[in-house]
């Protein structure tokens, strides 16, 4: 198992390097001039040439990549054209809001997905109507879900707020729902939750259905597997059959789908945060795109990509823990 973990983490490291290389290459071909970002648009051509030399931009490509990596390791992701601040400090400000949103959305997706998967066992007609509705909604673009949610639950019904986080995080975690509890502020906790519901749902529905469908299919397959027949033949109760012989065996595909869906959530969060004016890095990225603020775009891609790679390494480890045959 240890060997497997080490190998899997090693491969994640390689992947992160590849991601950084891709971003480096994109930075190379992007029309914007990084030098101007450092010294301003009004600098003289001589100053530009000097800066170019000092930034190492005249050295060959592999060297420039090493230089880029070195800066990455020192936490230097460049300066944003738009905010004129270091991208790292921008990210520090915006990342917690996104982390909270994605975490909540991911939990929603898992819960909804599991409900979707097991709802087939219920005989109530309403469940199939709900399932059909979710299936249709899940084919819609995330901006449609977000906007539809705002129109219905904010503008028409007035049940939920239509944007924003409701308050500023006051530390220490940056997760409003945790910080408010730490400060004993229940009202703020409720506000934070209310503000989270719509954007999190807009993000969660499509992944929930994807996870739910895979889980359902794999539960069905497992329920018909020979070893489950053996378990029944042993005279185990339905609960023991499900708990001991079905769940663990069918969780694998759903886990890997969940890992995969995280990637789509990271893309969706850019759209959803923009619509809800959520102060996160998705919104930061969305605002950087129209002004071609590539250092910001690159940094967000790198951060979210890295999180994605690590999350999927964890998914693989979980899968290996669930199925000993994978642990080879």
């Amino acid at each position, binding site marked *: 198992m240890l060997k497997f973990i080490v190998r*899997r983490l090693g491969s994640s490291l390689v992947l992160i390097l590849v991601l950084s290389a891709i971003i480096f290459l994109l*930075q190379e071909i*992007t029309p914007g001039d990084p030098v101007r970002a450092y010294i301003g648009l009004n600098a003289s051509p001589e100053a530009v040439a000097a800066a170019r030399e000092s930034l190492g931009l005249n050295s060959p490509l592999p060297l420039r990549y090493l230089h880029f990596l070195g800066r990455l390791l020192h936490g230097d992701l460049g300066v944003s054209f738009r905010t004129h601040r270091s991208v790292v400090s921008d990210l520090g400000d915006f990342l917690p809001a996104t982390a909270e949103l994605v975490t909540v959305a991911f939990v929603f997706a898992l819960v909804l997905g599991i409900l979707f998967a097991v709802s087939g066992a219920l005989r109530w007609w309403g469940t199939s109507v709900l399932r059909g509705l979710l299936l249709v909604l899940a084919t819609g*673009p995330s901006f449609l879900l977000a906007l539809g949610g705002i129109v219905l639950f904010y503008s028409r019904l007035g049940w939920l707020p239509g944007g924003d986080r409701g308050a500023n995080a006051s530390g220490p975690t940056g997760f409003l729902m945790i910080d408010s509890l730490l400060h004993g502020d229940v009202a703020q906790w409720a506000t934070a939750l209310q503000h989270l519901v719509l954007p999190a749902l807009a993000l969660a529905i499509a992944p929930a259905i994807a996870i739910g469908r895979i889980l359902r299919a794999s539960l069905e397959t497992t329920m018909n597997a020979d070893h489950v027949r053996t378990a029944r033949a042993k005279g185990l109760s339905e609960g023991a059959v499900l708990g001991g012989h079905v769940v663990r065996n069918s969780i694998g595909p759903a886990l890997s*789908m969940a890992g995969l869906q995280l*990637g789509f959530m990271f893309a969706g969060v850019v*759209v959803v945060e923009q619509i809800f004016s959520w102060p996160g890095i998705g919104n930061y990225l969305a605002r950087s795109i129209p002004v071609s603020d590539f250092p910001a775009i690159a940094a967000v891609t790198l951060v979210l*990509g890295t999180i994605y790679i690590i999350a999927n390494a964890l998914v693989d480890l979980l899968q290996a823990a669930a199925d000993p045959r994978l642990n080879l």
Partner: protein
Amino acid sequence: MTVAKIPASRMRVLAFTSRTPSGSRASMAVASLLLLVTIVAVLGRVLSPYDPVQPVGMLNLPPGSPDHLLGTDSIGRDLLSRTLWGIQISWFTSLVVVASGLVIGGAIGVTAGVCGGWIDNLLMRFTDLFLALPGALVAIAIVAALGPGLKNTLIGIMIVWWPYYARIIRAEVKSLASRPHVEAARLAGVGRGRLVLRHIVPGAVPTALVTASLDIGNVILLLAGLSFLGLGQSAPAPELGADTARSLQLLLTQWWIPITPGIAVLLMSLIANLGGDAVRQLLNSKR
């Protein structure tokens, strides 16, 4: 080194139709919806009653207005015309992306599966690298780096879209190549090229087609998202995601203006999913 994940389907969301043997006619009907959308897309410009770029009526007309079935936007352009043009662009772009996935992924997958050995290893490691990255996010970064526009959007998505096809087609080819019928054909004196083209590749076609038809909806959604972020065509060209983004400020007053293009995207993606599912069932029942 890398661990590739291929769940049963990528982000595929829909399966309304159940497995009934009598459902093959229904599947046929649903699958033909794909053709219908294609026809609508082909005729999009002919069907649209007005020039989508020019103001042609009063401002902010609601849907159902005479002369403007879906209403008009804040500068008086006909929403139906803009939507039809948008559907055309969106549908064909996603077909092109899916086709590129089939061609690039298919070429790599068949090569890897047939050659085996170090070629297979090399190609699949490369594929796995791409597959293990968050594709949609990398696509955003690529288009952002290249600059917005339809051509760059296409390039950006194509770069991240083929690995999935390569994986699936390679797996199919590999399993076909290990079947006894290939050994038997080799013994019967069939040459290498003929072996691949006649005894292996035809077997991978149904899987590739099913994968592709189920994938159209995914591409439509991603395209709409990129367009919403301003990475598609520049204004005033009609484009479904961008039209929503440009009219966001009207959400609380004239909600249908930003919502309409979104509904169009939903319908296309819904039909693509239903149609893809029907294609899968038709091809599976034939086996």
